[in-house]
């Protein structure tokens, strides 16, 4: 997405937020309409590096919007959008998208050697202790099972090199992993349903 388009979105969003606060459900529908442009109108994002947010965990969506607004998570696109949101808007949007069905992308299972590498990496850090059995996460911990392959890979790489800085635990953990580990983890998790 280009910056002018983001600016247009801001103008539209600004006018939406200025609307009288009647009917929270209608309100959130309107606010969420802006998200469709990238995250998809059926929950399937338009690009492989954009995350699925339909059916993502409510607390996680809220915390990420909060961090984007605070600048703790940097994004040229999402930062300006989040900056216009009040806390209640973020809570409402989080609840709205969390209630949507997760789109099953049916990404292919990786070959056996990749699975083995991913499982070794997972066991060393016990990733399920936060992301839980079946990779569904909960509340402020994201669902990662079935997330977009390229987004998972890029996100783990960004955590590792510190460009995504709003979860230092993930940064510290991923610094102990190689590129091959991250590639394997991304492929493994993308295929997990």
């Amino acid at each position, binding site marked *: 997405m280009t910056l002018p388009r983001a600016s247009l979105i801001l103008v539209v969003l600004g006018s939406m937020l200025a609307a009288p606060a009647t009917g929270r459900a209608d309100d959130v529908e309107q606010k969420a309409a802006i998200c469709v442009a990238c995250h998809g109108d059926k929950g399937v994002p338009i690009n492989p590096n954009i995350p699925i947010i339909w059916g993502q965990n409510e607390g996680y969506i809220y915390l990420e919007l909060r961090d984007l607004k605070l600048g703790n998570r940097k994004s040229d696109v999402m930062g300006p959008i989040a900056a216009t949101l009040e806390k209640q808007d973020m*809570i409402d949007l989080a609840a709205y998208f969390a209630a949507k069905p997760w789109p099953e992308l049916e990404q292919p299972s990786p070959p056996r050697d990749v699975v083995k590498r991913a499982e070794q990496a997972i066991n*060393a850090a016990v990733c399920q202790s936060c992301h839980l059995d079946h990779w569904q996460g909960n509340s402020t911990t994201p669902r990662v099972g079935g997330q977009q392959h390229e987004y998972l890979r890029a996100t783990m790489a960004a955590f590792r090199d510190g460009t995504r800085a709003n979860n*230092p635990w993930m940064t510290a953990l991923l610094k102990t992993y190689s590129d091959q580990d991250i590639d394997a983890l991304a492929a493994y998790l993308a295929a997990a349903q």
Partner: protein
Amino acid sequence: MGTLRRALMAAATTAGAAALTIGGLAGSAGAQEVTTGILWGNMNTVTQDLLNRAADDGNNFLMTHGNYHQTRFYPNRQINTLNVRHLHPAWIFQTDVMESMETAPVVINGVMYVTTSFDHVYALNARTGEQIWEYKHKMGPITTYCCGPNNRGVAAYGDMIYVGTLDSKLVALEAKTGKLVWQSQIADPELGYSETMAPTAVDGKILIGTTGGEYGIRGFVKAFDAKTGKLLWTFNTTAENSQGVWATTDATGRDLHRDIAAEKAAYAKNGDPYKTLGGGVWQNPSVDLATRRIYFVVGNPSPDLDGAPRPGDNLYTDSLVSVDLDTGKYVCHFQYVPHDLWDMDAVSATVLVDVKDKDGNVVPGVLHGEKTGHIYVNSRKDCSLIRFSEAMVPQENMWTLPTKEGARMLPGANGGVEWSPMATDPNLGLVYAVNLHQPMNYFVESAPYPSGKLWLGGAFKTIPTEEQWGNVTAVDYNTGKIRWQVKTQQPMIGGIMATAGGLVFTGEGNGLFKAYDSATGAELWRFQAGAGVNAPPSSYTVDGKQYVVVAAGGNTQMDYKRGNNVIAFTLP
């Protein structure tokens, strides 16, 4: 004695039921038998006197750790070393939640209360496993918790049941129906606070700590009014002036490799870090009614592995603390690991027993099993250390500092002894602990506090090439010597119970639930539960029949196979 009391209660119940029936006749056309009401007598009010006598109660299991001294010693001997081989499942109850179970069942007059991950509470008929009611907590959208969405059980008091929740609430339910009576917000979950521990009920107060030591919180223990949910007092587990005495060794005398001059300079420059110093509390306090003091242990400082933002001893993290039951005022403390950099903290429940001091005099003592792999024996009078046990697990490279590249040290960050409660046998003078052996590398990585996100200041990872295993260990608390030790296939997490039948019961991640001879460690019985048995067992007696009950739900933190079963065992 327990049987006699039960018989008396049954008689009282019959009298009560008769009175109700006669009263009902006056306004009805014919005689009606009373068929509604509770199952095993009408005595379902948990009085303070009943709780005070919990240690001698051969029928009930009134608190998650048995009694106020948290001995987890059940005084009935119907199931014993001679007949335990005949133990078999009496019933299995399946909960709605297939996730980690750390609940310790509480049983009161034939009704059992158990909890699950995500804070469901069940009341069950303890004789049959039939569900009486279920309470599903309506979880707030934001929960921040480390180590799994666990719940360790309820407290019972009066005609209410109390449970803490992941969204940091204390919830009071009607014991008969599970109906919500009140809920109090304990702290803000967005800041990293959550509840996984069971509350403790005593003298009209509900005591509860908080988790969040991995989130830059300021930990606490709070007391709430049992009837109204109003906050009565708060004890903050991180002290103002948290620098302490700049200790250079741990409680066992090992060098902590601290740069005290650099820490003092940082403290002078940046000030006291107590506001984000962590100090979670994972387990119930023990209660000494004679002195009206409570004893609990405080967990790690935040961030776990990075000492730079928190110069000083970080009081009262990694410490035993005693406060006044009625006011929450500080009484005494003893720190095991000053300025902890390894998450080598104090998380298992404290146990109150009389112990021999260094001169051989019997004094009121308090036991704690620590992640270091030692059991510490402290004085209840002033919290001072009397002795520490032989190490129950291998210790290597203690206390090598975490590095960017990773430094190997044993024990790994899960301990030693995790939150798993210990048990004691007062007749044998033994304390029983379950242990983990998990070699780990410790990495340090500085970062500012990311509000509401895990803040560990680095990472710890198991070493895939190294073997892991567990122990069940019996320690003589009057000498600190290991009496017996049994190895298990996997690191142990969940807890243990001892009984007057000469047995200890404990479960494993591979699904095995075992009974050992408490004097010798000989394995006398085992059962394959089909999912990790990683919860503390309880025991109770209904209709003259003793049961042992345990949850088999696996464990998130250790990634042991999940399940959703509560299994009660009895003799044919």
